[in-house]
């Protein structure tokens, strides 16, 4: 009965060939090589930013950069470098954006998670999320050609480029992020807690304010912090709609330049490699990098630290 094409013998024969065993050993190394690319990207970002930033500070003092108020990088006879005007613009635009994104985002989240029927949620949620998919360049166009002219009807003293309009539009862009992360936090609050409150005769709104939101507060705050990080890093809207005046001011009707917009201006302009203006890019970028990194880490810390255990 023994046959020459016995399958188990064939398999044993194949096993003794070493080719496949080699591949098996090789694969993890190939995959690890691919995985190292994302690590190298982080390292590359840190390294390039740091090296050029060191070059920058060999020409401009720390003190000038962080405490003076004058930013005129492209002034040939007497350039000056201060990050404060850029920081003030970034801060203002972020605050304005959060004034829009926090109330609208949170109430949207509450509506979707607590009030909406399943059917309504299935229709409304994708619509809200479409806002997150629109390219920022389109928001920039919208801010510049629509929102600013409309605002100028209301506030005549508003400059043609100003920080208010891109701030508002940036807020709109961030609504879906705040809404969807907050909604996740709200809907992970167990139903028993809502029922507990409502069994005592609380209205839905009272249950939301007294029980559900406090229970989900860490996730909600984390969503705000991530929204802030997003606003700090947002580039095109402010570049287009806020112009390039490097004023240290808190007047939201004026043109101001954020850190991100500064990077766009200098890279797309004619600051040649090796000039101080060119190196200043990296000093600004590393500041931006650490700001957003800090916000992202803070958000993670908040949601981990205060995670409710249900």
């Amino acid at each position, binding site marked *: *009965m*023994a*046959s*020459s*094409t*016995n*399958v*188990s013998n*064939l*398999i044993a024969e*194949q*096993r003794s*060939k070493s080719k*496949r065993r080699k591949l098996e050993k090789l694969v993890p190394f190939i995959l690890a090589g691919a995985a190292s690319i994302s690590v190298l990207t982080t390292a590359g970002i840190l390294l390039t930013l740091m090296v050029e930033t060191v070059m920058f500070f060999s020409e401009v003092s720390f003190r000038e950069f962080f405490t003076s108020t004058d930013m005129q990088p492209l002034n040939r006879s007497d350039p000056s470098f201060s990050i404060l005007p850029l920081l003030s613009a970034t801060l203002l635009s972020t605050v304005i954006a959060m004034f829009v994104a926090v109330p609208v985002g949170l109430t949207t989240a509450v509506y979707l998670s607590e009030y909406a029927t399943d059917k309504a949620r299935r229709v409304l949620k994708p619509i809200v999320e479409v806002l997150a998919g629109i390219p920022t360049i389109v928001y920039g166009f919208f801010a510049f050609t629509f929102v600013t002219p409309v605002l100028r009807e209301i506030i005549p003293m508003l400059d043609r480029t100003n920080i208010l309009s891109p701030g508002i539009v940036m807020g709109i862009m961030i609504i879906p992020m705040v809404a969807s992360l907050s909604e996740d936090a709200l809907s992970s609050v167990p139903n028993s807690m809502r029922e507990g409150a409502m069994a005592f005769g609380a209205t839905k709104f009272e249950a939301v304010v007294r029980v559900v939101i406090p229970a989900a507060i860490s996730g909600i705050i984390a969503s705000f912090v991530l929204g802030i990080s997003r606003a700090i890093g947002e580039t095109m809207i402010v570049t287009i709609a806020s112009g390039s005046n490097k004023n240290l001011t808190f007047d939201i009707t004026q043109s101001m330049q954020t850190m991100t917009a500064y990077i766009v201006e200098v890279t797309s302009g004619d600051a040649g490699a090796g000039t101080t203006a060119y190196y200043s890019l990296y000093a600004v970028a590393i500041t931006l990098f650490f700001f957003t990194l800090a916000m992202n880490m803070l958000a993670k810390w908040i949601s981990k630290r205060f995670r409710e255990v249900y």
Partner: protein
Amino acid sequence: MTELSMKKNVSIQEQPEEERESVFEAQGVNLWYGQTQALHNIHLKQREQEVTAVIGPSGCGKSTYLKTLNRMVEMNPEVRISGNISYRGRNIFSRRFPVEELRTRVGMVFQKPNPFPKSVFENVAYGPKIHGIRDKQLLEQIVEESLKGAAIWEEVKDRLHENAFGLSGGQQQRLCIARCLAVEPDVILMDEPTSALDPKSTMKVEELVRELKETYSIMIVTHNMQQAARISDRTAFFLNGEVVECDTTDRIFSNPSDDRTEDYITGRFG
């Protein structure tokens, strides 16, 4: 070209029971999931051309033991094992015995039918293919033989290239058995193979098990005592991670030596 033979020498069957060679031999096996010990000092033998049923209340370690034999249990990183298990005289935990080779020799049929989301043909050809058999004609031959061996050929021969998910649950389970047979294993481990099936499909699988033991050594975990009595030659009774008793099925069911076995079999607990 000689015909593909799925059967081994039948004459071994005639040998007296005690002299049949043992396939698996476990000696003093202990197993822990993290801090909890799931198996205590197991000593068991599995012999050629025999069906051994493993019975016991749920959580007694019977499935764990089965999965230890082909080392699937180690997919859980928490698992620690001590003791010794040999397969045909080779230590299965030895570094020189690749786990892939062990699992090729020792097939497994799972509780829930788990065909791949591929065609019937590709499901059965899967094993031979990953083990390096490329010859198309040979593969076709293997698929046919295996499907016949699992008593499902007649039902699927016209739909070999349809997705296996289209089969009924019982057909899927027999397909999984065919998939197992395709690499000509030595032993087949079955982990409650009929628990997800209806009575009719269960009967078919049981019939199949009785046929398969002519060729293969089978160990079957079951929570169904009638099933154990119907199809097995030997029965091992597990309780709280220990083997209480292992003997011929006749003796276990008619005259167990341990009271706990009797209690379980007569339905006093479990």
